[in-house]
C-alpha cells in the first residue's frame, strides 16, 4: 500500500474528512462560547452537517470501490444509507434546538457527540472488514451510551445509559467471539476472503449456526430485534427525547446496513454486485433464522406496545415491531427485498421522527408524555393534531400514506419470492392490524371523547410546524409511487464486491 494508493483512496473519503473537520471545528468553536450561547455550536454543527450531506449527494459512486485495503467500501448502497442518516441527523438537530430538556445547559458537546456518532455510522454502513465493522459498531454504541445519559442530573437518563452500556458490552462481546470463530475458520478478517473460504464449503452446518447466532446477537442488538431488545424501552424513555428519536432511526438503519452487507456478501454463494443469481450459502440457512427473528420482533413489539401508556415507551416498542417488518425484507435478500428495506427505512425515518417530534413538542408545551393527556389535542392544537394523525396512520401502514407504500413494497417482495414466505407475509400483515389498535389510541385521545372547545388555540412555533410539515408531506404523496425515492432505493442495491 503506497502513498499514491492512499491519496487515491482519500479522494473517495472526502465527506468523512469534511465531517471530521466540522466536528473539530465545533469543539474549537464551543471553547469560545459561554453556557448561554453554546447553542451557537449547534448551529455550526447543523451547517456543517448540511454541507457534508450535500457532498455525499454529489459524490460519484457509479463505480464501487474498496478503500484502505478493503477496510471500507464506497458504493451506492453505502452512499444511500449515509445520506439517509445524515438527513435524519439534520432533522434531529433542528428539533434539538426546540427541546426544553436541552435548554439551560451547555450543549456544545451534545452536538459534538452527535457528529461523532454520525461519523461512526458512515463507517458502519461501509465497513467490509471484521475489524472495521467492530470498531465502527463500537464507535456508534459508545456515542449512543453517552448521549442517552446526557441529562446527567436525571435518574432516568443515568439508568438509560447504564442499562445501555451493560447490554451493549455483553452483546458486543458475543459478537467479537463470533468474529473470532469466523476468523479462525477462514483465516481472514476481510469479508470477501471469508466469502471465498466459506463457499469452498468445509465448515459444518452446526458450527456455522453457532457463528451466525453470535453475530446476530451483536447486530440484532443494534437494530433492537427481539430477543435482543431488552434495553430499548428504558433507554428510549430515559434518554433526551431527540436522542431517542435519533436512536430509533439512525443507528437502527446503520445496523440494518451492516446486516445486509455482511450477510449478502460474506455469507452468500456467489459474489455479484447487482444481486443477480444470488443465493445464501448452502450450509447455512440464515434466511430462516432471520425470518424467526422477524416474527418474534413484530409480534412481541406489537403486543407489548398495546399496553403502554407513555408515548415514548409506546413508540419504543413499536420501533421493535418495525424492525421486525424490515427484517422481512432482509429475509428475501434479493434486489426487490433489499430495496424495500431501504425504502422502508427512509419512510420510517420520516414518520417515526415526526411522531417523536410531536411528542417532544407536546412535552414542551403541556408537560406530559402520557397518551391519555393528549385528550382533545385535535381541538386545542388543530395543526399539530392533524399532523400527528398522519404520522399515526402512516406508522400503521394505511393507504394512502407512505407507511402503506413501504409495507406494500416489503410484502410484494415476500410474496414474489415464492410460496414459502407466504406465511411470513400473513403474520406480518396481521401484525399491522394489531398495531392499528395502539396507534389509534393516540388518535382517539386527540379527537374522541367529550369535545370541550378550548378558549385559545395552541400554535407550535413556526419552525417546529415547518419541520413537521417537511416530515409529513412526503408521506401524504408517497402513494403516487414510482416516486424518486423508490427508484433511488432500487438503484442503491449495489454492493462493492472484490
Amino acid at each position, binding site marked *: 500500500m503506497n502513498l499514491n494508493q492512499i491519496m487515491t483512496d482519500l479522494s473517495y473519503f472526502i465527506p468523512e474528512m469534511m465531517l471530521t473537520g466540522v466536528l473539530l471545528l465545533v469543539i474549537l468553536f464551543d471553547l469560545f462560547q459561554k453556557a448561554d450561547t453554546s447553542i451557537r455550536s449547534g448551529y455550526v454543527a447543523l451547517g456543517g452537517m448540511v454541507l457534508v450531506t450535500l457532498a455525499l449527494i454529489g459524490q460519484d459512486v457509479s463505480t464501487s470501490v474498496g478503500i484502505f485495503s478493503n477496510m471500507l467500501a464506497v458504493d451506492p448502497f453505502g452512499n444511500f444509507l449515509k445520506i439517509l442518516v445524515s438527513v435524519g441527523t439534520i432533522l434531529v438537530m433542528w428539533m434539538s434546538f426546540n427541546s426544553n430538556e436541552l435548554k439551560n445547559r451547555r450543549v456544545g458537546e451534545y452536538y459534538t457527540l452527535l457528529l461523532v456518532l454520525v461519523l461512526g455510522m458512515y463507517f458502519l454502513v461501509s465497513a467490509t472488514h471484521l475489524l472495521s465493522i467492530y470498531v465502527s459498531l463500537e464507535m456508534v454504541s459508545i456515542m449512543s451510551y453517552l448521549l442517552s445519559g446526557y441529562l446527567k442530573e436525571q435518574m432516568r437518563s443515568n439508568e438509560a445509559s447504564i442499562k445501555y452500556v451493560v447490554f451493549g458490552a455483553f452483546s458486543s462481546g458475543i459478537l467479537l467471539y463470533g468474529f473470532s470463530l469466523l476468523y479462525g475458520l477462514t483465516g481472514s478478517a476481510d469479508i470477501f476472503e471469508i466469502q471465498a473460504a466459506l463457499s469452498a464449503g468445509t465448515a459444518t452446518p452446526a458450527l456455522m449456526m453457532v457463528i451466525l447466532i453470535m453475530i446476530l446477537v451483536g447486530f440484532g442488538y443494534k437494530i433492537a430485534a427481539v430477543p435482543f431488545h431488552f434495553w430499548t424501552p428504558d433507554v428510549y424513555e430515559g434518554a433526551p427525547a431527540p436522542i431517542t428519536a435519533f436512536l430509533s432511526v439512525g443507528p437502527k438503519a446503520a445496523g440494518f446496513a451492516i446486516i445486509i452487507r455482511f450477510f449478502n456478501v460474506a455469507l452468500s454463494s456467489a459474489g455479484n454486485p447487482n444481486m443477480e443469481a444470488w443465493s445464501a450459502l448452502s450450509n447455512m440457512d440464515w434466511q430462516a433464522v432471520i425470518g424467526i427473528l422477524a416474527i418474534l420482533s413484530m409480534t412481541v413489539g406489537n403486543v407489548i406496545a398495546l399496553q403502554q401508556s407513555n408515548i415514548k415507551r409506546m413508540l419504543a416498542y413499536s420501533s421493535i415491531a418495525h424492525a421486525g417488518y424490515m427484517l422481512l425484507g432482509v429475509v428475501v435478500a434479493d434486489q426487490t427485498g433489499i430495496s424495500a428495506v431501504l425504502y422502508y427505512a427512509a419512510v420510517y425515518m420520516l414518520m417515526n421522527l415526526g411522531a417523536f417530534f410531536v411528542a417532544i413538542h407536546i412535552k414542551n408545551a403541556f408537560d406530559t408524555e402520557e397518551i391519555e393527556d393528549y385528550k382533545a389535542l385535535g381541538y386545542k392544537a388543530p395543526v399539530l393534531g392533524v399532523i400527528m394523525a398522519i404520522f399515526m396512520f402512516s406508522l400503521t401502514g394505511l393507504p394512502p400514506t407512505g407507511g402503506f407504500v413501504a409495507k406494500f413494497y416489503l*410484502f410484494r417482495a415476500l*410474496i414474489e419470492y415464492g410460496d414459502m414466505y407466504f406465511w411470513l407475509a400473513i403474520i406480518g400483515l396481521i401484525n399491522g*392490524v394489531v398495531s392499528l389498535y395502539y396507534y*389509534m389510541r393516540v388518535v*382517539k385521545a386527540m379527537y*374522541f371523547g367529550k369535545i370541550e372547545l378550548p378558549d385559545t388555540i395552541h400554535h407550535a412555533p413556526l419552525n417546529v410546524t415547518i419541520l413537521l410539515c417537511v416530515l409529513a408531506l412526503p408521506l401524504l404523496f408517497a*402513494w403516487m*409511487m414510482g416516486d424518486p425515492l423508490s427508484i433511488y432505493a432500487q438503484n442503491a442495491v449495489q454492493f462493492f464486491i472484490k
Partner: protein
Amino acid sequence: MENHLLSIVTFLPVFGAVIIALIPKEKLDIIRWGAAAITGLQLILAIWILYIFDFSTAEVQLQEHYAWIPAFNIEYFMGIDGLSAPMILLTALLSFLAIFTSWNIDKAQKGYFALFLLLDAGMMGVFSSLDFFLFYIFWEVMLLPMYFLIGIWGGPQREYAAIKFFLYTLFGSVLLLLGMLALYFISEPHTFNMLILAEHSSQFGGALLLGMNAGKVIFILLFIGFAIKVPIFPFHTWLPLAHVEAPTAISVILAGVLLKMGTYGFLRISFPVLKDATLWFALPLAILGLINIIYGAMAALAQRDLKKMVAYSSVSHMGFVLLGMAALTPAGMNGAVFQMFNHGTISAMLFMLVGVIYDRAHHRDIEGFGGIAKVVPIYAGVTAMAFFAGLGLPGFSGFISEALCFIGAFPVFTWITIFATIGIVLNAGYFLWAYQRIFMGELNSKYEKLEEINNRELFALIPLAIITFFLGVYPTPMLNLMSSTLNHLVEAVKTAGMVAGL
C-alpha cells in the same frame, strides 16, 4: 368530458371536502348547503352516466385507462358495467340524501361534512375502479373517515364501536391485500387489471399456494375480506355496534352502501377471476346465506332497541343477496344485485326513520313508545310504508328482488331455499310486531306532544319511497340495466366449470 365522467364523479367530493375545509366554521349554513350542492351535483352526474350508459351490452363503458405505476403494471383504470352502474346511482343518491339527514349534527360540523365527502369519494372510487390496486386504495381510504365519523359524532359507545369497526375491516383488508398480491404474481404477465385477470382465470386453478390450489386459497382470502364487509355470519359482530352507535346519516351510508361493497367485491373480483373456486364454494356460500337470513331475522326479533333491530334486519336481507348469487343462475344473480340496490334504499329509509324518532324522544326502546300513530300520523304512515317494504310486501321493490333470488336458487339449492323462506315470515314478524308496539295501542302519555316529522326529513325520505314503490311495480328499467352484464357473468362462470369438468 364524457370520457372523464367517472373520475369527475369520484373526485368531485374530494374537491368539495377541500372547499369545506376552507370555509370558516361559523358559516354553518354555507357548509351544509355547500355539501348538499356538491353531492347534488354528483347525483346529477350519476344520473347522466346512467342516461348515456348502453345497457344492451356487457362491455365495460366510460373507460379511463392510464398507466399509473408502470414498474408494477398498476393502472388508473376506471369503467362501469351493469354491475357497478346501479351501485354508482345508489351511492350518489344516498350521499345526497344523507346530507339532509345530517342537518342536526351539533358539533364540529365542518369536520363532519368534510369527512363525509371524503367517504363519499372513497365509495364512488370502489365502484368505478377496475384495477385491483386502485380498488384496494379506495377501499382502504374509506376506513379513515368512517372511523372518525363513528368515533366523534356517534352515540355513547362510539369509541369502542369505531375501533371495533376499524380493526375488523382492516383485518379483512390485509387478507384482501394478500389475495391481491398472490393474484398479481400468479397471473402471467403480472397485472392488477381485473378484466385481464378474469380472462386469465384458468391460470389460478393450476398454480399452488401454501401447497394447495392457489385459486381456492386466494378465494378464501378474498372471501374473508369481503365477508367482513357484508357482513356474513360469523364475521358480523362489528355491525350491530357500529350501526347503532353511528349518527343517523352514517348508519344510512353503512347499511345502504358499505355493506354492498362486500357483495360487490364477490361479483366484481372473486366470481369472474376465480371461476373454478366459485363453483367449489357455491354451496358453502348458499348455506352462509341461509344462516344470515335466519340468524339475522331471529336476532332482530329479539331486539328492544329499534336501531339494533334494523341493523340485524340488514344481516338478514344481505343473506338473500348471498343466496341469489351463490345459485349462479341468471334469475338469482339479477335478484341478488337488485336486492343490493333495494336493500340500499329500504334500509336507508329505515335508519332515517329511526333517526327521526330518536331526535325527538332521545331513546329507541321499542317498548318505550305506544300508540304514537295518533300524535304523528304522517310519520306513522311513512314508517308503515318503509316497514312493509322491508318485510318484502308485494308492490315494493324488495319483494321482486327477494322473489328473484328464490326463483334463481330453488332449482339449484332446493332445500336451502325452502328453509330460507322461513326468513320471510320472521322478517314480517319483527317488523309488524315492532310497528304494533310503537304506533298502536294505548298512547303513552309521555308522547302526547311528540313533534311531527318535518319537511327536511320528508325531503330525504320521499325520493327513496318513490323509488321503492316504482321499482316494486315496474322493475324492468333496473333489471335491464344490470342483466346483460350479470347474464354474461353467470355464463362465464358456468362455462369455466364445464371446461374443468365440475
